[in-house]
């Protein structure tokens, strides 16, 4: 599909994501201004507060955005998942430029003018309103402009906590190896940043001292651009009343509300969508909080932000319960179910029927030429191979360190640690020679990759299950029973490929599968 075709086909969704992006940025900036300007003014009055407050704002800016989102999730009222968390996190980022520029702007005013204001008998409030804020306005507006531009960028990461926005396209594009998605998301957010920058720059210039002659024209231009943005947001609002993946479904439903979460990769989204559509058919009101990054689904479950999400027994066992890997699937399921109930008050559904194991992948032509079939076959020829793994595989207990030891790999070069979805493409084009993917990934056949057999049975089994909160388990029981052992590895791989390879919507692929089963 050409980029233009893609844009035409997805215009509505793109507009809706843009609108979400704008709303998140505007809300967070508004918070930052409402909080930051008074704080900044306070700092000019009580100078001893400058070091602690600016220090705090400084530290907030250095916290990596994804980490900040993660930290906010368990916090009641402020956190959780969705746009609220994103707005708060972004507001925290935007705080520093607003506070700092308010302080700099006011303290930078010629002391003679402050003296003139005092000597005229202005009260503190009058001095602030009539003299200090107007004179500091250009500097404060610069701070706000910086805050907005930062926010537009950081807001793309907000998609990881289910806040929607243009980051949704970027994450999805990375995951699905889809350049159209990537470019659309990146270009749209870059354009947005430029537009905001331009508009606020115009307004800012109109506040410059003595720019009276140009003032009116610039205000008109500035407010014009702001108006266009607001209009875009509104139109997007009308066009996109369905709302994006990260948002609650607005289907009218009479039944009890269940929020389904998912991890941030295609298979998890498909499984979550299967459950969501089944629940909707049963008459529940279903909220969707899909595409949650890293450990967020589990955290969200504990924080009661979601009620259920798809998980893998091996992941739960090793990554969440932090146990040493074991290879018997039934034992893993049993142990995990028991521990989840005791430790978290969470319930495991019956196995869904397939396992998504780590798949050690090489290029198909390499496998055929060298006659490689198992992981052990590859060890002797792999010295000069460039390995590349997702962050997850590099860090987890059942991941890279144990794997290398179990098979006796001796890579000459340090493996690359990178985004999992990018490793597929890097392998296919020869940048990497060996990666660890997921066995159900549709890209394996699409990119002509070959899965080496785990002949030493190093990897623990990753049976797909749902994890649910205990108080919702009763409502979910029927759906869980219907899904028991119904999805085969082959079917899962096919559905994954429909989405990743054929670029179809998970919603449609799932609806099709549900009709057939």
């Amino acid at each position, binding site marked *: 599909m050409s980029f233009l075709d893609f844009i035409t086909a997805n215009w509505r969704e793109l507009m809706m994501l843009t609108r979400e992006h704008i709303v998140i940025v505007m809300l967070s900036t508004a918070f930052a201004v409402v909080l930051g300007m008074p704080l900044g003014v306070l700092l000019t009055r009580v100078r001893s507060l400058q070091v602690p407050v600016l220090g705090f704002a400084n530290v907030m800016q250095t916290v990596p955005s994804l980490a900040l989102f993660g930290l906010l999730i368990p916090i009641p009222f402020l956190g959780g998942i969705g746009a609220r968390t994103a707005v708060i996190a972004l507001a925290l980022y935007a705080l520093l430029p607003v506070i700092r520029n308010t302080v700099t702007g006011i303290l930078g005013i010629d002391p003679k003018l402050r003296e003139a204001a005092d*000597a005229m*008998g202005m009260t503190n409030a*009058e001095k602030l309103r009539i003299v200090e804020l107007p*004179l500091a306005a250009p500097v404060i507006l610069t701070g706000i402009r910086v805050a907005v531009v930062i926010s537009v960028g950081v807001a793309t990461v907000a998609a990881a906590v289910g806040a929607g926005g243009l980051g949704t396209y970027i994450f999805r594009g990375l995951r699905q190896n889809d350049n159209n998605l990537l470019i659309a998301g990146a270009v749209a957010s870059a354009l947005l940043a430029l537009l905001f920058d331009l508009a606020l720059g115009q307004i800012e210039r109109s506040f410059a*001292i*003595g720019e009276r002659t140009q003032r009116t024209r610039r205000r008109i231009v500035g407010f014009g651009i702001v108006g266009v943005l607001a209009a875009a947001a509104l139109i997007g609002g009308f066009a996109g009343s369905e709302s994006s993946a990260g948002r609650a479904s607005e289907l009218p439903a009479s039944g009890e509300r269940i929020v389904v979460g998912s991890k941030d990769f295609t298979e998890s989204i498909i499984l979550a969508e299967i459950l969501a559509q089944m629940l909707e058919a049963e008459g529940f009101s279903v909220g969707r909080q899909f595409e949650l990054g890293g450990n967020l689904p589990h955290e969200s479950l504990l924080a009661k932000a979601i009620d259920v999400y798809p998980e893998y027994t091996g992941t739960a066992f090793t990554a969440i319960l932090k146990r040493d890997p074991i290879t018997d699937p039934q034992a893993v399921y049993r142990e995990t179910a028991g521990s989840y109930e005791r430790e978290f008050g969470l319930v495991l559904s019956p196995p869904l029927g397939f396992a998504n194991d780590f798949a050690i992948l090489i290029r198909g032509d390499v496998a055929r030429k060298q006659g490689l079939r198992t992981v052990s076959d590859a060890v002797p020829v792999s010295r000069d191979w460039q390995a590349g793994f997702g962050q997850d595989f590099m860090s987890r207990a059942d991941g890279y360190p144990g794997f290398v030891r179990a098979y006796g790999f001796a890579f000459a070069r340090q493996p690359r640690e990178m985004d999992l979805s990018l490793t597929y493409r890097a392998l296919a084009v020869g940048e990497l020679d060996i990666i660890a993917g997921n066995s159900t990934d549709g890209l394996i056949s699409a990119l002509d990759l070959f899965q080496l057999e785990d002949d030493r049975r190093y990897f623990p089994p990753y049976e797909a299950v749902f994890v649910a909160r205990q108080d919702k388990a009763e409502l979910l029981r029927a759906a869980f029973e219907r899904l028991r052992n119904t999805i085969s590895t082959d079917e899962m791989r096919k559905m994954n490929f429909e989405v990743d390879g054929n670029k179809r919507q998970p919603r449609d692929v799932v609806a099709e599968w549900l009709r057939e089963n």
Partner: protein
Amino acid sequence: MSESRTIVSFRDVAFEVAGVRILEGVDLSVARGETLVLLGESGCGKTTTLKLINRLIEPTEGDVVVNGRSTLAVDAVGLRRGIGYVLQEGGLFPHMTAAENVGLPLRLAGSDSGSIIARVDEMLTLVGLEPDSFANRFPHELSGGQRQRLGVARALVADPDLLLLDEPFGALNALTRAAVQQEFARIVRELGKTAVFVTHDLHEAMLLGSRIALMDKGRVVFLGTPEEFAVSTLPLARAYLATVEL
């Protein structure tokens, strides 16, 4: 000099900041209608003395009395609104037009806009700035002398009894300064205002002052009329006079 004719008096005033004595044992009276010039080199304490009058700073020891009441006993904001203040270059606000700057004290006092406009025009005319061509200009569109006139107009607009001026004409070139000084002398005379005028320029002091207070190292070392100053035998006074007689 009877108490009712006295508008400002300093009673054994000392001022100290961070342990450094800036003023020591200052006793001064300013009579209604006179122009008292505080003359001295930078750092002698003349500006400090001026700022004590409208309580921009507060005395460490002693008492400053304005209109019969200690400045510390009255509300600082109210006190300042009754006193006009002129800084070097006028201390004009760069984001406001000439008219907005001049009208500001009236706006603070809550006057209605119609009366503000009328009064501002009157003041602009008084200081020699034609309202039609100057009212809507910004400070950066004016010359130094014009800015200084605006500063005086702003200080006078609320019709205060007392004017404080901190080296107002120091940044002007010689010709402009002479013109503005003449004009200022005329206005003060016509309106019968009391003024305390800080300068380091003896010529200006002799021209404008009813009396001159010569300050040195935080003390008033001479107090008298320009005529008395001219014949003073004080070495510092002689040194000043020498610069003028060149």
